[in-house]
Each structure stands twice: as C-alpha cells, then as structure tokens.
C-alpha cells in the first residue's frame, strides 16, 4: 500500500470515528417543559426552543392572524391553530439534535420560509461537522503533497 493510500485510509477511519463515535454527555433528569409559541405571518415567537433529550415538551401554539401549523422535521408531528384558538402539541423529545419546525398550513406568500428551530440537547451533528471540516484541513496538506509527489514521479 502506498503512503498516500495509507494516509487516505487513516483519514477516512478518523472521519468515520468522528461521525459515529458516541460523545460522552451527561443528561439531566427529564422534565416537562411548556412553551407558548405565538405564530403570525411569517414567524414564530419564540423561534428557538431548547430542551433536553427525554424531556416531555408541551407546545401551545397560538395564531395571531390566519391559520398556522407547526410541523417538526425529524419528529414528523404537527399541530395547527386557528386565530384565537390555541392548540397543544405534547411529545417526548427522544431524538437529540437540532430540528427545524415550520408552518405546514399554507398561510401566505412567505409560508415556505416560516421556520423555527428546536434544539434537543446539544447540536452534536454540528460539532461533528466542524470536526470533519478541521480534519479535512489537517489531512489535506500531507495528502495533497503526497499526491503531487506521486504525479511528479510519474
């Protein structure tokens, strides 16, 4: 096996470890968290919700103008609220990570971009992605010089 291939293999293995290795995190005891989320064209308030993995989340959605929905990516659950008639969504945040929530009832022009963010624990995937970006830069120089040297030899 040539040095460049060995180097590449090492990088790939390190990258896979970075993506799949479990992170040592201490989870606080699950609790019930209630949020009142006000929806209006085309924003939620608050637009960022933070909970811990295992928490029971209660979202009370209140619409100020037209019918709005709230669909959580990754969880695939939703509610909708008419103006003046709040609706409640209750679920256990059993999937860690960062998820967008968005309006799933067509509510006007900017409807496709009516988006909020639910963070369940730390955004591990972001950290792993940053790790991959750092790894790619660290690994790039030696690999690149090996490839260039090999090309020059040929």
């Amino acid at each position, binding site marked *: 096996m040539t040095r460049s291939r060995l180097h590449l293999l090492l990088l790939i293995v390190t990258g896979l470890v970075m993506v799949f290795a479990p992170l040592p995190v201490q989870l606080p005891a699950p609790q019930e968290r209630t949020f009142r989320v006000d929806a209006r064209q*085309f*924003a*939620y*308030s608050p*637009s*960022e919700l933070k909970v811990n993995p295992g928490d029971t989340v209660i979202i009370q959605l209140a619409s100020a103008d037209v019918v709005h929905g709230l*669909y959580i*990516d*990754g969880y*695939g659950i939703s509610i909708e609220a008419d103006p003046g008639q709040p609706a409640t969504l209750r679920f256990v945040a059993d999937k860690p*990570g*960062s998820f*967008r929530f*968005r309006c*799933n009832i*067509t509510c006007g*022009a*900017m*409807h*496709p*971009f*009516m*988006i*909020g*963010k639910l963070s369940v624990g730390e*955004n591990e*995937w*972001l950290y*792993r*992605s*940053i790790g*991959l*970006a750092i790894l*790619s*830069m660290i690994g*790039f120089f030696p690999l*690149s010089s090996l490839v260039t040297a090999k090309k020059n030899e040929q």
Partner: protein
Amino acid sequence: MARVELTRFPLIKSAVKNRWPQLAVLILMLAGYLFAILAGLIGTPVGSHNFSIVFVWIAWWATLILVAVPFFGRGWCAVCPIPLPGEWLQRGAIVAPPDKKPKWLSLRWPRGLRNIWLQNISFLLLALFSSVLLTTPNITGIVLAGMLFAAIGLSTVFERRSFCRYLCPVGGFIGLYSQTAPIELRIKDKQVCVKCEGKPCYNGSADGYGCPWDVFPGGLAKNSYCGLCMECIRTCPHDNIAINLRPFSADLAKPSARMDEAFKAFIMLGSAMVYAGVLLGPWGAMKDAAYSVGTGAWFVYAAVFLAIIFVIMPSLFALCISRFENLTSFKKRFATLSTALIPLGLMFWVAFSLSFVLTNATYIFATLSDPLGLGWNLFRTAEAAWQPMLTSVLAPGQTLALVGGLIWSARTAQKAANEAKTPSIPVLVYCFIATLVMLWLLV
C-alpha cells in the same frame, strides 16, 4: 483521468449534429416557459400551488443546481428557451440554412460592456427581491416575461445571443460554475483551426449558424462562455470539434484573473450565505425585512446584503491575501486566488438548495395536477399532502456537500496559489471560516 471524447460515439454524434432533437427539446421548454408566465399572471396567487413558483423555483432550480450545473456545466443553456424567439427574428429561420443578410440592426455589443458586470448586477437585482420573487406568482411571471422580452429586444439590436452572453442573471453563475463540470466542448487539433479558411464555426456556413455566443471555438480554454449550443459541431468542415468527458474542475487549473469573474464568485458565495440565514433561519425579523420591499427595513436588508457581498467578504479576503506580497500585482492575485471560491460557492448552493428543495418537493405532485390552482385534478395528485422528504439524511448530506466543497476549494486554492506565486494558506483559512459559518447556518 484522461479526456474521453463523447462525440466519437455515433449515437451522440448524430444527436448533436442533427438540429431536430435539440429543437424538439427547446420547443417543449418554450411551451413550459410560456405556461409558467401564464400561470404566474392568471393562476392562483398562492405560490405553493402555482406552476410558476413550484416548477420554476423548486423543480427547475433543483435540476439546475443539483444536477445540470455540477455535471453538465452549461447544459441548461443548450436547451434554455429564452433565446429561441429572438434568434428566430434575428435569423428569419429556425432550421433553414442561414441567410447572410442581417434582418435587424445586428450591432456589435459595446466593447466596454464585454464582461459579466451586467450579469452580476442583474443577478443582484433579482437576489435583492428574491423573497418576493420566490413566493409571489405574478412577480415570477413578470420577471420571466421580462427576461424573454429583453432577449428578443436585444436580438433585434445586437448580433448573436447578447442577452445570454452579457445580461442573463442565471447565465452568469452557470458560466462561473460550469468550469467545475466534467464536460467540455473543445477543438481536437489547434493546427486544423489555424489553417481553416473562413472559420465557419464563428462566421456560419450553409451547415449552420456562426457561434451565437460570439466565441471562436479554436481559442476556447474554459467553459464559461460556451453555451453548448452545438452550432460549431454542425458547421466545422473538418470534424475538429468534440464534446469531452474530463476531470471535474479542469478549467480551474488555469485560473482567470478577471475582476468581474472574481466578484461573481463573491456574489454567489455571499448570496448563498445570506439566503441560508434569511430564508432557512429562525429569525422572523429578517424574513419580514426581506419581504417588505420598499420599506425602511427592506432598505436596511438590501444595504446589509450588498455590504456583505461587495465590502465585507472581499475585504476579508483581501486582508487574508495581502500579508503575502510578491511580484504579482495585488489585483491579479486577488482575482486569481478567488478561483478557489468557485467550488466552495457551488457546494454552498448545493447544501442550501438541498434543504429548500427536499422540504418543498412534494408541492410538485399537487401542482402537476392543478397547475393554475383552479381546482383541477388532471393526474389525480392534486390532493397530495405536503411532506418534507429525506429529513433524516438532509444534515449529513449538507455536511458532505460543505466539507467536500472545502476540500475541493483547498485543492483549487493550491493550484491558483501556484499561478499567483503566493502561499495558499490564507485562502484556505478564508474558505474554512466561510464553511464554518455555513455549517452553523444550515446544520
């Protein structure tokens, strides 16, 4: 990887030489384009149920940025219907042998405007109004009609495809990113072109029209300004022009030193980042500002957008590279090294578009059955429910695109730095920081 000549395969060669297959696709595209204008103007004002929004900004955009540009470069330009009516007026024919006498003014495009600054401006004009454009059918209809009429108007005043070459807001960035594509149109033997009399590829002949893109194929060194219209393959009497499969980003090995192209790279990189924050982020105030065209908030949004693209990002880049002075002029170094931003920008757009497209792709099924939002159900899919697609693989896919883009840029930066005789590290640091920002915005 060596180049593979695709046009040596008889099937491909005959499909390219024959005018009819391309014309058939063009006519189909023109029908779709005219229908998109019509749908925008008379269809439902609800964007997510209108053909013009769903098929232009979701279906077409996804095809363009995720498939056509990365793999076929200017492949879209080969079948884009916008120049077709103007060209018909200009030539007085569609498939018949060209008449040498010009039908209209047929002026040369002004020398001072033979660059892509106008394309940079036209893209920015659309970008500043994009929140309205992407969501309001009649605005999309008006813009599509405007582009068609602009192309027709310019065809009657200037020779060849002046709109495509110098004004089209989409063509500018397709040209920039087409340099990364693994496909190219090039001559086979330079000496054949040198000795060729009459240069029919540029001037036209009984077999076809002179290059509509005002390019002499014999001097073609990169994809940016070749629209893959295939006319030169039809007119070359020596069979000296080929379509080749090649390694990705082959054109970037010899970077351009043009400031209009350098700023195109900044415009595209910056726009992807602004869109990721404004359109896909959770900040409602920014969406309000972007959508409320003409208000004070919108002017602040526009000023910040332009400042990011024209001041902040280029200044930071200049600051990065200014520490390593050498014999090359700063301007040339700036333009040459900005080549590294081309693959980075392309992958930023891929990552941004994945999120936008996968979330909204299911609108395509409903709109297919009811394109004007009039309650039709042509293919029994009008009731298809909205459902985001592949949400579990979205974040990994975006990371792959962004980190892959970073590595691709690093390699490009090394080559550009060799040309500019300067270290590549500052450019890599710049690309790395931009990637971290984009990861934070998207993942």
